[in-house]
Structure formats: structure tokens, C-alpha cells
């Protein structure tokens, strides 16, 4: 059965429509890609291009933008077939691109043609993407950011400094949030752009972190220019667009590991299994508790996937991000406590190749230090608890000193 015929079936109320028909259609399309572009023999970019063209990069995206307009819950049906055949995990190759840029571009780019032109090389990983949001003066209070964008003819002129930018040194494109109007309250004066990282006036410097490595960058923009066609959403609507990115970021960070025992918990279980000489009953209960929490969170992700719709991630992604981050820390704290004084030596603080993210592959001690960032990056645990409280439970917001004042008048520092 060809994909095209099945599309016709799905347009009616015939036996092929509905969730079962959609799943079959996705799976058949995935098998066809694998048959025609064996990921074990064709180059990665060619294979991912075929995945994009078949609408399997993000099945919930529109046709022509790497999707089929189906429920996002069906993505796993495609991914398991593609990856079982030896296909890559594209998220790992272009994490900001897949996890955050793609949904934002699909939803907010000015024309479908422009969106497709960005999305295909993003999907093939020819174009790596990064995200220019956080600033030295705007972390949790992202909407308070100061980087300015000033209209000049058909262009915008950008000045400012961004920080904590992963992959900026490898990226061709960046998602940029900048202030276009300092005279209105902070959320209303932001506009969202796509920045060419190779444009004149854009400078990237590595930022060294406590592990000794430099996974992130600082990015300086001095009179960098962006054509207005590369604006996403309306002028002044940048905050709403940024929400698309951030909800996807949290759901990407929190939504990993679908098989039992996979993920960082395996580090603790493997260390435990390898070192019976270090066992105590108290540590055994502690690890069992960590394992059980990891399993409960895995099941919660599965449950939220089972009820997910094409609408996009909801705030429940924030549950996963919150739990995952705190669990990671607790897991590595456990490992360090198990190791005792063995944990107090460290491999090497020498700054190494910044194109590889060494901190997750390194020794336990390095992973332990890296996990301190988990409860800060992508929304601090404090901010995430506010989101759970306010957006899921509907509790009133905290009192704010800045919501009704023009951004220009709000104290910063």
C-alpha cells in the first residue's frame, strides 16, 4: 500500500482513518524510507533528508515541513523503525535544532517556503542551530533581556550579549530574542528573530564551566544585521513565540529515556553492580528509591505521550524537566557517596575539544559536577515549580515589581 493511497483513505471515514490507520501509515512510510535509503549504507544527511521528505522528521508538522499533520504521539512509531534499521538519533546531532528551533520555525515563520528552507537542512543536520536567549542580566527573568533590535530599512540592527549558548561555535543559525521597544512593559517589547551566525558583527567565545570543559558560549552582537523576512511572529510578539521554544525545550530535556533502567539511573545501577565491596543497607535503599522515582517518572512520560495530541507539549513537560534534573543530581550524589574518597579525585580539568560534549561521557566525578547545571539550565527548578503551580494548578502569580512599568524604568543588575 502506498503512502499516497492511504492518505486518500484517511481523508474519509473509512477503515484506514483514526489512530490505528494513522499509526499504520506512519509505520509503512518509515519502512519505505528504510527500504529505499538503508541508513547503514547511505550517508547520514541523505538518510535524514529522506526521513524529512517522507514527513517523518516531526510527524505532527504540516506536509512539506517534514511532517504529515498527525498526532505527535505517533513520532515514536516512526523513530523505532528508523532507529532499529540503524538510523541515527537526529536529536543528538542537532539538539537545539530538533528540540526547539523546528517547532518554533514551523509555527511562526512568515512563509511556509521560508520554513521549509530552514527546516530541511536543519533536519539533515547540515545546519546546526543554537538559541540566543539568556543574557548576563536576564536568566530566570528572561523577559527582562536587554539585547536591542532597531529597525533600519528592511533590516534590524542587533546589539547586545548572550550567554549559556550551547553549540554557538558550530551553529549556522540562531534563534534570537531581542528587545524592539524599551518603552513598554518587558514582555510586550520583545521580538523573535533568526540570526545568521556567520553575519558580520557576531562573535562567539567559549565559556568554561566547573567541570573544566566549555560546553557553552558567550555570543556578542555588534551592529549585526537581520533581514525583516527572518523575523518570527509579529513585532512585539516575541514572548509568545519564545514560549513555543521553551515549552519544547523543557519537554525535550524532560522527555527522554522510554525504556526501564535507561538514562542516568543506569550509571548508579552499574556502579552498584560493579562495586559490591562498597554496599551498605542504607545505600541500597537509597538507590532503590532513586530507581523507583526514575521508573515512576518514565511511566509518567509514557502516560503523557499516550495522551499527547498534535497540539504541542503542555506544561506537563515541566514535570519531567523538574524531576529529571533533581533526580540526575541525586543519582550522582549517590554515586559519589558510594565511592567515598575515590570520588574525591578528578580526572583532568584541562579544557579539551569543545566540539564534543565530554561531560556526559566522562568519569562519574565529571558527570557529578555537570549535574549541578541540570537544575539551572532550561528553567531553574524554582521557576519550574512556579510554572507547575501557576499553569497546571492555576495558583495566583507572585507579586511583581515590573509587570506594569516600561522596561526602561525597571532596575537591573
Amino acid at each position, binding site marked *: 500500500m502506498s503512502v499516497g493511497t492511504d492518505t486518500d483513505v484517511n481523508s474519509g471515514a473509512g477503515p484506514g482513518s483514526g489512530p490505528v490507520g494513522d499509526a499504520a501509515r506512519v509505520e509503512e512510510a518509515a519502512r519505505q524510507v528504510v527500504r529505499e535509503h538503508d541508513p547503514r549504507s547511505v550517508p547520514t544527511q541523505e538518510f535524514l533528508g529522506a526521513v524529512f521528505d517522507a514527513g517523518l522528521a516531526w510527524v505532527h508538522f504540516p506536509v512539506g515541513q517534514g511532517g504529515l499533520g498527525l498526532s505527535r504521539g505517533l513520532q515514536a512509531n516512526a523513530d523505532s523503525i528508523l532507529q532499529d534499521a540503524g538510523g541515527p538519533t537526529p536529536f543528538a546531532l542537532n539538539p537545539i535544532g530538533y528540540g526547539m528551533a523546528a517547532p518554533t520555525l514551523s509555527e511562526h515563520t512568515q512563509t511556509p517556503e521560508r520554513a521549509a528552507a530552514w527546516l530541511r537542512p536543519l533536519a539533515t543536520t547540515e545546519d546546526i542551530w543554537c538559541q540566543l536567549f539568556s543574557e548576563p542580566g536576564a536568566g530566570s527573568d528572561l523577559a527582562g533581556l536587554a539585547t536591542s533590535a532597531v529597525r533600519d530599512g528592511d533590516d534590524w540592527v542587533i546589539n547586545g550579549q548572550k550567554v549559556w549558548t550551547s553549540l554557538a561555535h558550530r551553529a549556522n543559525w540562531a534563534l534570537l530574542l531581542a528587545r524592539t521597544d524599551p518603552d513598554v512593559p518587558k514582555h510586550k517589547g520583545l521580538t523573535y528573530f533568526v540570526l545568521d551566525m556567520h553575519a558580520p558583527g557576531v562573535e562567539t567565545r567559549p565559556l568554561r564551566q566547573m567541570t573544566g570543559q566549555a560546553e557553552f558560549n558567550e555570543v556578542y552582537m555588534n551592529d549585526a544585521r537581520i533581514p525583516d523576512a527572518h523575523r518570527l511572529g509579529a513585532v512585539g510578539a516575541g514572548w509568545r513565540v519564545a514560549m513555543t521554544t521553551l515549552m519544547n525545550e523543557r519537554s525535550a530535556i524532560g522527555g527522554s529515556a522510554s525504556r526501564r533502567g535507561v538514562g542516568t539511573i543506569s550509571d548508579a545501577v*552499574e556502579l552498584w553492580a560493579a*562495586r559490591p565491596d562498597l554496599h551498605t543497607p542504607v545505600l541500597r535503599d537509597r538507590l*532503590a528509591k532513586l530507581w523507583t522515582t526514575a521508573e515512576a517518572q518514565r511511566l509518567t512520560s*509514557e502516560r503523557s505521550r499516550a495522551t499527547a495530541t498534535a497540539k504541542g507539549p503542555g506544561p506537563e513537560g515541566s514535570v519531567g524537566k523538574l524531576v529529571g534534573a533533581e533526580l540526575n543530581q541525586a543519582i550522582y550524589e549517590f554515586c559519589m557517596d558510594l565511592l567515598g574518597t575515590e570520588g574525591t579525585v578528578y580526572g583532568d580539568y584541562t579544557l579539551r575539544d569543545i566540539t564534543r560534549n565530554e561531560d556526559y561521557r566522562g568519569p562519574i*566525578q565529571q558527570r557529578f559536577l555537570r549535574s549541578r547545571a541540570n537544575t539551572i539550565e532550561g528553567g531553574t527548578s*524554582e521557576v519550574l515549580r*512556579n510554572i507547575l*503551580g501557576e499553569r497546571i494548578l492555576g495558583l*495566583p502569580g507572585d507579586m511583581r515589581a515590573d509587570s506594569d512599568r516600561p522596561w526602561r524604568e525597571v532596575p537591573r543588575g
Partner: protein
Amino acid sequence: MADNTVAEQNDTEPAAAEFAFTDEQQELRRAVRKFAAEFSDEATVRTLMESPTGYDAKTWARLGAELGVLGLAVPEELGGAGGTLVDQAIAVEELGAVLFCGPVLGTVGLAIPALVASSEGPVRSATLESLVEGARTAAFAVADRGGSFDPTALTVGATRDGDGWALTGVVERVVDAAAADVLLVAASGPDGVALFVAEGDASGVERQALSTLDQTRRQATIRLTDAPARLLAGPEEAERVIGHALAVGATLLAAEQVGASQHLLDLSVGYAKERLQFGRPIGSFQAVKHRLANMLVHAEHARSAAYHAAWALQDGTDDPALAASIAQATCSEAFTDIASGTVQVHGGIGFTWEYQAHLYYKRAITDAALLGSAEVHRGRIAASVLDSQIGRLPSPPVATGIL
């Protein structure tokens, strides 16, 4: 209507994906919720918890005969709805949400699953039918050790008595036993451990009702002196039957903990929005908001773990004992944390007798202890997933510090 539809659904449709509730299951949930709101409001619960039997036999009978939710997972040929354990979990969750007074755990959670798991015979069918209909109630007089069965710890002996059996011994703190019409009793007989059915009011059965921490869930100590009984499950199957009942009971207890947890979370959030201090709703303070966010995470994890266990026991997709232990370890902690949080978020009112928080708090403490504490279940989880791996997994890299 709901239960019949569920049964038909499962005869014709492939097994539903885990966590995807069918329309019929949503309808079932609404029906039980409506019933619970009507027949088990707080005033009713308070009346019943001070009443002699602790529950209302008429309401219980309606749950069975009218709503048909006492035997949702019981096959149709045995008089049940022929549905799934997930259906039963949904009904129990909704009853747990209102602290429904009645033998939910003793009859639905433990006795009925034990009867279903036993080999067919006149004792089984005669006992099961009246329990599913709600005409009679049962208690599971099997002393468990933290939710698992230890045949060496039995305190009841069985001897042949003509065509039947005579039981002698004591079983302490049996849930729902004081008013039960039927007792399922494990006892050591001449051929080994077996499971027996005794009438609650038979000669030689003495029941001592206990004053319990949770007044909405009664317990009794049972003293048997040559009490007449009939054999339900002989030594060849008794341990399997009891093990099955304990796993189902742990799973349904978890579902009940989910229902009560969700109720308390909603209650606390509602209060935090209404209660004003310092001129603001207390829910706008992050100290309160973050505690409520933690309670939400607990409730979500509890729901996932409880329903995973229900699906796993139903469809065999996971080791039933492990799934039940994950559910109990997760839900006992969650409900206890949420109940403590509820008292705290409510402040002074949460400590009063008049307010409902203490009723749930006492249920949470009791439920956490019943069928094994979180610690006991974590011990089983560790035995299953940690101890078995010792020496078999590669070690992740650990830096030596040698340059």
C-alpha cells in the same frame, strides 16, 4: 451500562495501549464519581465511621447490583462484568477519593481476586456471586508480611471435620473483618497450606472489632476455635492464589491512594487560592506554591505507577510482583506526603476535627502500612533489579586522579 460496555469492548477490541483510557472507561469513572458524590459525601462518611458496622449495607448492595462495580474484572461466567483490572482500578480510585466507607479493600481488593484465581468449584461460585452482587461482604484473613505471604508464619491450623474442615487460631488486624459475612482464611492443614471459606457468624468464630487510627477503614482480630470451614484452594494452589490476591490488592490499594491523593491536591490548591494572608492568596507565596507543585509531582507519579501495575497485571506486560511493588512504594509515599502537605497548607484548620484533612491523613498513614510499607516494597524492588545485577554489569568510568 458502563460495565457491560467495557466487557463487550474487551471481547472484540485488541488490548488497549497502556495509559490510554477508553470512552467506556471514562464513562465508568463519571458514573462512580457521581454515585460517590451522592451516597458518600463527607457527612455520610462521618456518620458511618461512628456507626456500629462502619458502612451502609444498602449502599454497598447498590454498588454491586445497580452500578455493577464490585466485580469489574471478574469474568462474566462467574457473574462479573468481564472487564479489566484497569476498570476495577478506576472504580476503586473514585471510591478512594471520597474515603468511601465499605469493604473495598477486603472484598474487592483481596477476597474477590482470591476467589477468581482459585480453581472452579461450588464453594467458589456460591461465595463469589453474592460478593459481586454486593449482597454479602468478605474479608481476607491471611496474615501478610509486608504484602507478601509467608506460609511459615501462619497462625491458623486446619483439621478435617467430616466433609468439611475445622479452623483454630488467631488472625490479628484483619481489614474489613468485623462486619464481613465471609472470611477467607489461610491455614496449615495435614497436606500443607490451604485457603478456606468460613462464615463470619459461624460458631467458633469470634471477632473483636478494633478501634482504628483510620475510622473509615475498620479492622478486627479473628479468633477461630474449631470454626467450620470449606476448602477453597488446596495446597497445590493456595500460595499462588494468595500471591495473586496480594498483588491485585496492592494494585487496587494504590489506585485508592491515587484517588485520595488527587482529591487532597485539589482541596489544597483550592484553599491556597481562597485563603488570604498578608493581603494575598497564600498560594501566591512560593513556599506554599512549591509545596503544592511537589504534591502535584507525587500525584502524577502515583497515578502512573498505579495504572501501570493495573495494566501489567491485566496484560502480563511486566513482572506483576515488581509492578505492584513499584506502585505501592510510589503511592504510599505520595499519599502520605500529599496528606501531610494538605494539613500543613491548611494551617490551623487542617488540624481540627471538623475539617476533613485528618480523615485522609489517617487513611494515608494506614494505607502506607497496609500490604507493605514503601520501605518494604523498595526492598523487593532492590532484590529484583539491583541484587540480580551484581557482578554482571560493566562499571561506568571512575576517574583515578592519576595524570
